[in-house]
Every structure is written in C-alpha cells, then in structure tokens.
C-alpha cells in the first residue's frame, strides 16, 4: 500500500510516454475516447488502421505483464445495471466533451489547454459527487 504512489508515478510515466510517442511520431493526440469513438460513430473511419492498431496494442500488450503480478483484480462491479448505466454515461459524456481522462487530462493539461483544464475540473467534480451519492448515500456501489 505504501508503494502505491511509486507505481502510480511509474505507470503515469509510461502513460505520458505513450502519449508522447503518439504525438511526436504519428502527430496525433492520444485520447482513448476519441480513438474508439471515431470508429464507433464513423467520424474517424479515414484513420481506421491507426485506431485499430492502437486498440489492439492497449488490449493485448498488458497480457504479457499480467503474469508478473500475483493477482490482478479490477474489482469491477458485479451489478450489470450499474455497469450499463455507467458505460452509457462514460460513452455519451466523453464524446460530447470531445475527450476523457487521457485526451483532456493528460494531453490537454500538459499543453495548458483551457478546455482540458475545464473538462478535468467538471469530470472530477461529477465523479466525486457520484461516489458520494452512490456509495455513501444510496449504497449501491
């Protein structure tokens, strides 16, 4: 538990390095919701190979590292109603806002983008309220 922040920093460094590779080599912003969302709604089909390759990498490469851990548990909710409502909110919201934690949070804040900073403030607030409401008040998570 005491080492969590170190692994957070190391993992964060990898995430930032990935974003830097995608920016400096491919010239594109690494936003998870935009890369997937552009394939889902058709707006990004002209860059489909790059998007699909990115998704293949993010899904498959971690498989090589999972065996290094004694246990990997996402602690994901077993309540499918919660997962469906949350998934719909995340999908609609990240596309309306044109970005999520990676696009607005990592790529936006690091270039001092006002949109990125404003989006991050609002989704952090909403996330905090959601946990307060659903965990402490309603007790569904």
């Amino acid at each position, binding site marked *: 538990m005491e080492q969590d922040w170190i692994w957070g920093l190391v*993992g964060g460094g990898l995430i930032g390095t990935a974003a830097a590779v995608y920016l400096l080599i491919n010239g594109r912003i690494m936003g998870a919701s935009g890369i997937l969302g552009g394939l*889902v709604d058709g707006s990004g089909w002209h860059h489909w190979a790059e998007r699909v390759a990115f998704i293949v*990498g993010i899904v498959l490469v971690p498989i090589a590292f999972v065996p290094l851990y004694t246990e990997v548990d996402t602690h994901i909710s*077993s309540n499918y109603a919660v997962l469906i409502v949350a998934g*719909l909110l995340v999908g609609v919201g990240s596309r309306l806002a044109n970005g*999520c934690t990676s696009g607005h949070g990592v790529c936006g804040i690091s270039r001092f983008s006002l949109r990125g900073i404003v989006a991050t403030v609002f989704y952090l607030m909403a996330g905090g309220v959601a946990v307060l409401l659903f965990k402490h008040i309603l007790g569904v998570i």
Partner: protein
Amino acid sequence: MRALFAFVAGGIFGTGLLVSGMTDTRKVQGWLDVFGDWDPTLAFVLGGAIIPMAIAWRFTVGRRPQLGGEFPPPPEPKLGHNLVVGSLLFGAGWGLAGLCPGPAMASLSYGGLGGFVFLAAMMAGMFAAPPVRGWVDGLAGSS
C-alpha cells in the same frame, strides 16, 4: 508504419494503466472518495503522465511529426455547453463504475465479463453521442 507506432503507443498506454493501478476500479473510486477513505494514487499517475507529455508538447514547436503531416492545432479557446455537459456525464459514469475509456479497453483481457458489459454500454453511448450533441446545442441555443 503509422499502425505500428499506434500499436506501440497503445501497448505502452495499456501497460502503464496496469502498472499504475488505474485499471483497479477501487483505486479510481478511492481517489474520487474525498469523503471516505481517500486514495491519492491517481494524482501521482496524472502528474507522472503530464511531465513527459509537457516535454513532448515543447518539442513540437517548429517541428513536424516523424511520420509526416502536421501536429494538432492549438485547441479552440471556446468552451461550449457540450464540453461542460459531457464532462459532467462522463465524470458521473466514471465515479459510478470506476472505469474510463482507456482502462476499460486495457483491462479487457483480465477484467472478466463485467468489463465487456461496460465496454458494450460505453460503445452504445458513443454511438448515441452525435444526436445528443445536436440536442444539447439546440437546448443551449433556444434558452
């Protein structure tokens, strides 16, 4: 070549999400749980990610991407209703499940059936987003 480096970036991203603990929904919800047992890990993750990326943005000045084309133009300073409404909806879902789009994809191989349920719902939400965007614009315009 573009696809190769996209694969590499995706792979490093997914590994970073695993290493940082951000595919563990409890750690994410712990960060958002400011009134409960608060977990500061996410701040280190975001800080650790912003530093290399801030250097990368500096490096773009006066240069072009290695594989050609142009770097993304500076973001529009305009905020807009969709940015705020979307971020509020996204944040609510993020808090409810403890997953955002990156970790939802990165944890597919080890997140069990629930991970696929969340991903399917998220993609349905993404599919529905363009008409919802028009609707928000309409409401904002008529008020």
